[in-house]
């Protein structure tokens, strides 16, 4: 019984905190995938008010800004 419990626990996914660099890479990948621009360009244009925050692809990248900054 104990062995099974340990095995089941080992299968449970564990969340992972990304380093700042890993987070910026993830953010950059999402910006490129959804908007065809780098993460840095997204931040510059978003902060300048050039991107529509109501557009779904902008939104799904903007919500990831804590990874990118």
């Amino acid at each position, binding site marked *: 019984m104990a062995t099974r419990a340990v095995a089941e626990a080992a299968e449970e996914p564990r969340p992972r905190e990304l380093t700042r660099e890993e987070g910026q890479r993830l953010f950059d990948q999402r910006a490129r995938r959804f908007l065809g621009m780098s993460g840095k360009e997204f931040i510059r244009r978003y902060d300048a008010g050039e991107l529509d*925050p109501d557009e779904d692809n902008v939104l799904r990248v903007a919500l990831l800004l804590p990874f990118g900054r």
Partner: protein
Amino acid sequence: LAARTRHAAVSAFVDALQQALSCVTPSVLYHSYETGARQALTFADDRVRLASTRRPREALQLSVIHQYEAVRQDRTWRISSRAYYYRVDDPDGGERLSWHWHPAATFKRPHLHVAALDRRRHLPTGRVSLEAVLRLLLTEFNVRPRRPDWDGVLAAREEAFERSRTW
């Protein structure tokens, strides 16, 4: 969920969401570096495919983004949510349902987009928990549970959500 340190509060929050998601997927949640400011979490690959109780080609896909912040309250820390984006896609990737709350956009209150109606419409909702979305998928959208105790896991998390929400 109150904790003695900021780190403990963040860990408890992220662990709880990961546990709820483990009812439908083994995918790992990534969360942003703890800076003391707003944080976010999401899946490594944006969206994950959910096993179907019917045919494999009917597998829906789920995207999750959640923004949160650790806030000090008296002598303890708790997590305050700042925005969410829960999206369910058809097997081919087309959007089916999306629950949003993102106060930075024009429509600031929690709402639902239903692609089959008119995706541009913002259908008002109360604040929706991720656990409620997962329960809906498991009970009404033929998503196959990944663990036998999913009902209890989600019930416990939903109860905690109701207890800790401030609005």
